């Protein structure tokens, strides 16, 4: 099946590194065909959503400083419509997990995630959030934030450069673009979410 509609304004489709992955994802989503009317409406809504994602102001450690750099003058994520950082999880679309998550913080992060309204996204920024990073041997550190909440995009680095975060943001914009807005809870979220919630 031909893949259409995953072009985002800021970067060419060919310039991304992992297009096969996204194509497979789209194929899976559209396996049962797409209603023309709903599909068109979907595209319109997703166009709007992917260009105005509001992140939560959340950072535990070093990556937070690079997150601030992304918000400041040089990298400036306002160019992509991401600039409205929200202080309340109720108003945020995406949570950037910037920094190490430790045992004491884990229930707090879970609660923040639960407080966010659907559809919501998680970006694991930096090696600590991905897999514990340099602190993986510690008695008090989570080996990756995906132990407690589902993650949409991983941005490696210790800490990642602002450009890497921007790349991760654009990947997320593509992900938002291909999703079926009217069936979000059915097929767009990874299965682990419910498993983890019951743990």
């Amino acid at each position, binding site marked *: 099946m031909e893949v259409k509609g995953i072009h985002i304004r800021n970067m060419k489709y060919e310039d991304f590194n992992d297009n096969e992955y996204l194509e497979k994802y789209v194929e899976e989503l559209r396996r049962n065909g797409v209603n023309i009317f709903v599909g068109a409406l979907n595209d319109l809504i997703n166009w709007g959503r992917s260009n105005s994602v509001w992140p939560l102001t959340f950072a535990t450690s*070093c990556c937070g400083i690079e997150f601030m750099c992304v918000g400041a003058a040089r990298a400036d994520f306002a160019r992509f419509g991401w600039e409205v950082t929200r202080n309340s999880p109720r108003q945020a679309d995406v949570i950037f997990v910037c920094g190490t998550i430790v045992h*004491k913080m884990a229930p707090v992060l879970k609660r923040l995630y639960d407080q966010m309204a659907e559809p919501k996204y998680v970006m694991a920024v930096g090696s600590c959030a991905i897999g514990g990073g*340099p602190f993986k041997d510690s008695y008090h550190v989570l080996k990756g934030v995906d132990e407690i909440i589902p993650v949409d995009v991983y941005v490696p680095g210790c800490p990642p450069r602002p450009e890497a975060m921007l790349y991760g943001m654009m990947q997320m914009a593509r992900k938002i673009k291909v999703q079926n807005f009217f069936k979000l809870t059915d097929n767009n979220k990874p299965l682990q979410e419910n498993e983890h919630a019951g743990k």
Partner: protein
Amino acid sequence: MNTLENKLNATETAKVETVDGCIVVTVEPCQLRNAATLLRNEGYNFLFDLVGFDSEALGVEYLLSQTAQPAHLLKLKSQTNNRQHPEFPSLSSIWEVANIYEREVFDFFGILFIDHPDLRRIFLRTDWHGYPLRKDYDATANDIPTHNELIPDMETSHSISLHGGREADEIHSLFENNEYVVNFGPQHPAMHGVLHLRVSIEGEEVKKIDPNFGYIHRGIEKMCEGYTYPQILHLTDRLDYLSGTMNRHAVCLCCEKALGIEAPPRAQYVRTIFDELTRIASHLLGWGCMCMDMGSITAFVYGMRDREKIMDVFEETAGGRLMPNYNVIGGLASDIHPNFRRRVAEFIPYMRKMLKEHHLLFTANPISAGRMKRVGKLSLEKAIALGATGPTGRASGWHNDLRKIDPYAAYGMVDFDEMIRSGGDTFDRYIIRLDEIEQSLRILEQLIDNIPQGAYCEKTKAVIRLPEGEFVQRVENSRGQFGVHITSRGDKTPWRVKFRSPSLTLVGALKETAVSHKIADMIMIGGSLDYVIPCIDR
């Protein structure tokens, strides 16, 4: 020293010796309080740090300093073989800052401090099993918690009866029943990280603050015990990431001192330049964030813009932006980039010009000055008692700049002023940061054209083993005196590593300074103290 020994021996049997030019006083636990009182009267008014240790016997080591002779450290040591009920008298009535340090040692070692007013866990959750820094700690004893922590409103104090037996633990409430308590954090944009404050307020006025740490406690000190010395270096950058280079510098100096080597002059110069660039970057960010706490987004954008210039210099030479990972034991990881000198030389006049603009934009603004002046006053005595070093202490008139007191690297060769003010209010703390940027530029100016040629790193053995002993090194980072305390048993890994975080005492200072001010001013005072939470939690 002899007079000190005589005085100590007149009252008790204390062992006084000099190890590597540092006086070590060893006493029995029951005599600890008397010895401490005596030392306090002798002029040891600054408790630099408290190190708990587990060398089969559990013990405590108080690192003391005098404000009259700040270059010298004295160690007051005591240990007990009772692992079931290790008990020491609390010294929080002698040095106020001991309050927070003793809670930390209780949390990590399970050592009870008798008569401590408020002995609760400070970093770990109240339902945590075991004491992680003990050598027999079982790392698998705790699962990832899934429920929120119920933080008790009770203070616990342990006392001993006259007959020697333990009295029932005294428990009293932290807040009164009719008090209105507001939670700040751990996820709060103005908390500069994941600090959790419980603030009791009356109307808009702050009555009492109870800080709660540990939301980013990574157990770095325990991890260090399993890592080799070059590996430890990478963790130090991530303590106080805004002064990562200085922290790393401290560990490098400590290891070099123990090994008896010295970095070549070229490395000394470049290390100093890196330290000062880091200080400028940190102060710019601290300035921007403090102004943002007061509602000025412009200052934040300006500060970050100028900071990017420094990040470029770091990136070109060291490869990392926020964390250059550049110092190694014996010198530098690599030689400087050919553009390094030109870039730094260009940065100095640029920053001077921008500083003028920053002053014009914000310092000269009557609204901001009106908010900052006479708010959050910290007196000189309080600053010393609370161990609030760095720009905060200097704003209160305390000469505590280690670059002047105990010069390391190239600081002895350069001409600069230690910035001292006397007011101790928020405005003084604010202005002292901008003044220090100016002084850092002066240092850079003197060093950048004179970097000596030659090797950039001293040769070290492939496997670095520190000789047996205890090694302490202090450096001035952008928030105050950062200290490393390494206990080595001659292995390639240390037996115990303790970092002295300047930010921890700054939160102690917040508890004092913000009381009876408006809640909006508490945020601003916090911004002016400029603490970094991952450095506190370690």
